[in-house]
């Protein structure tokens, strides 16, 4: 997953909660748009004793920072950070239930942000669902496959980070480009205004002031 941006847009003031239910114990990656002064929450059902991890990164917008907090089913805040650009957090679920994590852009008045997050619950499932019950020794070929699989997972992971970095750098570059364009235009206008008013001002020094209210002598 990743590289797809779902945007939850509603016509009327609806609060859309995206429930990511892990039918397969894997979790999800999502890149979504967070409007200014808004909060977006996600919920996940987690069993007791399962370890889960959340890492997130701000891709575009403002100062590239976001608030994030996470609550357990009892309402306790297990993680809370403000104005973070990226972070990673793991936790072992003590209570079974629905865990909630929210991203908040409420501190920003005009910059909407694009946030990427990766929420992983539990371990990777075995290649065939019924394999988990069998306990067999792996042949050399199979262990080699497992090793290669883990190594490739690392490669895919670092590629994902490069892709996010590239998207972020692109956003910064485009922001800079528009700022420079506006400044150039503004500077040209300022140039014209200043040179014109210089000439007018100089001319006014050498122009006699006409007396106000001339009386007509008959």
């Amino acid at each position, binding site marked *: *997953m*990743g*590289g*797809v*941006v*779902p*945007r*939850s*847009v*509603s*016509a*009327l*003031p*609806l*609060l*859309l*909660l*995206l*429930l*990511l*239910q892990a*039918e397969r114990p894997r979790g*999800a990656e*999502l890149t979504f748009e967070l409007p200014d002064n808004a909060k977006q929450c996600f*919920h996940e059902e987690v069993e007791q004793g399962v370890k889960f991890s959340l890492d997130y990164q701000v891709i575009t917008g403002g100062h590239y920072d976001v608030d994030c907090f996470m609550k357990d*089913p009892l309402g306790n805040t297990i993680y809370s950070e403000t104005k973070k650009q990226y972070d990673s957090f793991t936790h072992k679920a003590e209570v079974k239930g*629905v865990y*909630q994590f929210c991203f908040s852009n409420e501190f920003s008045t005009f910059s909407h942000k694009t946030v990427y997050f990766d929420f992983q619950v539990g371990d990777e499932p075995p*290649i*065939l669902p019924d*394999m988990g019950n069998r306990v067999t020794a792996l042949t050399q*070929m*199979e262990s080699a*496959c*497992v090793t*290669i*699989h883990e190594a*490739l997972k690392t*490669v*895919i992971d670092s*590629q*994902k980070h*490069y*892709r996010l970095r*590239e*998207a972020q750098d*692109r956003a910064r*570059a485009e922001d800079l*480009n528009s700022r420079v364009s506006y400044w*150039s235009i503004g*500077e*040209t206008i300022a*140039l*014209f205004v200043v*040179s014109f008013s*210089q*000439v007018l001002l*100089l*001319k006014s020094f*050498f122009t006699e002031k006409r007396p106000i209210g001339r009386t007509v002598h008959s």
Partner: protein
Amino acid sequence: MEKYQPSPQWINLFVFVKDPENKNLLARQYGPRGSFTFTSQSPGEHEVCLHLKSIRFALFYDGKLAIHLDMQLGEHTNDHTELAANDKLTLLHLRIQRLVEQVEKIQKEQEYQRRREEHFRQTSESTNQRVLWWSILQTLILVATGIWQMQHLKSFFKAKKLV
């Protein structure tokens, strides 16, 4: 989390998918449940939008909607149990198949990065050109404005018989 009621049958969720060129890849209306697949034709940012346009909804329900979204990309779309059953593959074969899928994903990602770099290089070169032309233009404007100022003032002073 608050308790949610099951969704009524008349709820229609409008789904549309946009490709990097802002063209609609998919635009359809679904009931309270639905599934869709699409294959990306070009690399880049795709947008998936879920839209609920219903005044009836806002009036009768507090305005809160819980959506279950399950999205799978790339090699996660392959169902290994199905593959194993259809082709009668051994476990080892399946493992190697999974490795092949992973390598294909890596290749696709590298291809994507290559295209991004190419695009970035083109943008850099065009920006470089534009900056060069703009600097020259701005210098010319500056010089022309200076000349205009001098000429205007000179004629003004001549008229005033100060020069």
